[in-house]
């Protein structure tokens, strides 16, 4: 009964990298510490490349607490990509904070939480990983010393802690009813329960509410716009991408591996939550004047699309969920990287100040337009392929009504995305001074734009990996 540490190497390497950079940073003079971001990004890219060899193992190690399956590896790589892009684009932000490089370290600790979360095969591991990620984000959200940031931090902390208490209560009920904390064993124990157990249903509801909060499904979305607006933009980016994607993975694992026998009870509920998120998220995004708030509501809508993948209860659904999660992460990072660069130079997040961005920085305007069109699902961008996979997987399961709502809401989302594009291209700029893009942000913008364009026409490699992920979770 010993643990083979090679299976945990990506996590160990990430933790070591964080500690190493923390120590090395002390030797670097203050005004150069922001450059540690490049070192960190290189290290994370090395881990990303290294993690490819974990595909195809499909094992559960360390006393059934840690799953090294393709689903977990796919999501780990997704978080690593998100972390690399976020670290690269936040170098300027750290420079402005007088080289306060602990910002990078806490980001990597949050990443570590996400990576363990994707692999968690035991409810205890799952909870510890979830809290590692969440507590790091509470700190990050309140990182800036201005009033809005502190308020965003405290709001996220209070609501986040309540949601994790609710989630934990749900876990304790599931543990009590089944007598085990191992996710794969729960399914077997649930089958033994001859009658429907009300306590288990209550536990399921609480778990759904706790995770629904983290992925900001309606009606647990109230924190999203506030925290997204108040938190530093690099943090908002990571919160909207990594933290959400991690919780999609956990939700899929709990619902599809532990509680598939109760699917008649949760399927309709998840469908209604998805529909509500699509409708309210996209409609409330229309009147927003702050671009971060608009993207927050749009991300609520996107969460609605992504969880439809769980409803299909088959490999195709999980494949679509994995694929769309990647596309969502790339397009959200692209959009927020533009917002980050713009607000670092002009100090504004208002949509009206984006007037004439096409003349001040054609590159930024193009990337923002492409990422938004991808989120809306316009061909030939990657978002279109992702939505196609998602809708195809649920339409065969009798969710035509959900597909129709999804399509209508995609049309509506084009309206408010194009409104920003119109401001950027049609309205004359008040301030003609060009906006310069720093090197790190330039890499991020270029890579995400390229990925969105390429995966739209040539999705083969990614859909193959997503398919492996899907069949690992639901063979």
């Amino acid at each position: 009964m010993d643990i083979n540490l090679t299976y945990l190497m990506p996590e160990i390497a990430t933790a070591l990298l964080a500690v190493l950079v923390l120590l090395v940073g002390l030797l670097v003079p203050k005004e150069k510490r922001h450059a540690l971001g490049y070192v960190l990004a290189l290290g994370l890219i090395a881990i990303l490349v290294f993690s490819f060899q974990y595909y195809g193992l499909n094992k559960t190690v360390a006393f059934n607490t840690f799953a090294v399956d393709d689903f977990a590896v796919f999501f780990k790589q997704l978080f690593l990509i998100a972390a690399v892009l976020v670290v690269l684009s936040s170098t300027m932000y750290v420079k402005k904070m007088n080289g306060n490089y602990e910002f990078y370290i806490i980001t990597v600790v949050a990443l570590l939480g996400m990576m363990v979360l994707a692999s968690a095969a035991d409810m205890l591991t799952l909870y510890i990983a979830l809290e590692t990620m969440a507590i790091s984000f509470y700190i990050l959200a309140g990182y800036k010393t201005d009033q809005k940031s502190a308020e965003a931090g405290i709001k996220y902390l209070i609501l986040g802690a309540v949601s994790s208490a609710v989630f934990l209560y749900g876990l304790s009920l599931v543990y009590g009813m089944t007598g085990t904390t191992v996710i794969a064993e729960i399914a077997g124990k649930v089958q033994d329960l001859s009658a429907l157990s009300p306590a288990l249903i209550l536990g399921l509801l609480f778990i759904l509410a706790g995770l629904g909060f983290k992925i900001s499904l309606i009606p647990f979305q109230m924190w999203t716009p506030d925290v997204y607006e108040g938190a530093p933009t690099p943090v908002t980016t990571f919160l909207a991408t990594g933290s959400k994607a991690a919780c999609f993975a956990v939700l899929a694992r709990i619902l599809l591996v532990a509680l598939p026998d109760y699917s008649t009870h949760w399927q309709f509920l998840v469908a209604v939550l998805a529909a509500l998120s699509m409708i309210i998220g996209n409609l409330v995004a229309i009147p927003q004047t702050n671009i971060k708030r608009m993207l927050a509501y749009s991300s609520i809508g996107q969460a609605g699309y992504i969880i439809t993948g769980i409803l299909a209860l088959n490999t195709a659904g999980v494949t679509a969920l994995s694929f769309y999660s990647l596309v969502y992460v790339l397009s959200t990072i692209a959009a927020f990287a533009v917002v980050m660069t713009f607000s670092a130079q002009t100090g504004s997040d208002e949509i009206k100040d984006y007037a004439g961005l096409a003349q001040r920085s054609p590159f930024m305007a193009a990337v923002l337009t492409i990422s938004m069109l991808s989120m809306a699902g316009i061909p030939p961008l990657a978002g279109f392929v992702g939505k196609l996979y998602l809708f195809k997987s649920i339409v065969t399961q009798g969710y035509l009504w959900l597909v129709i709502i999804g399509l209508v809401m995609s049309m509506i989302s084009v309206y408010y995305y194009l409104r920003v594009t119109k401001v950027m291209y049609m309205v004359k700029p008040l301030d003609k001074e060009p906006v310069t893009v720093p090197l790190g942000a330039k890499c991020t913008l270029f890579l995400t734009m390229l990925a969105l364009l390429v995966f739209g026409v040539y999705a083969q490699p990614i859909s193959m990996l997503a398919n492996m992920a899907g069949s690992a979770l639901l063979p």
Partner: protein
Amino acid sequence: MIDIFMDKFLTIGLEHFLILSGTLFFIGLFAVLAKKNVIAVLMGIEIMFTSVNINLIAFNRYTAAEALLTGHVFAIFVIALAAAEVAVGLALIISIYRQRTSTDVQDFDWLKW
């Protein structure tokens, strides 16, 4: 009739613990929703976590097979993580108190809800 009722009521079983933990959970939730002082809100959150611990240990005592201590271990981790959460919470409260000299949640209104 009364005898049977008293007998059932006085013999402490799993139900008693579940009722206690359920009550505590909702007392905590009430504190979070109704209290104005953010420190009291944090206390409410602590009560919610405590109710989970009672649940875990009671389930471990009454339902777990053999001599497994999963529930106990789980409870210890919950205590540790709740402490970490409160440490960060208090740090954030100090940071916001310095700016606004208030710990009233209703004063935290720079971001519209």
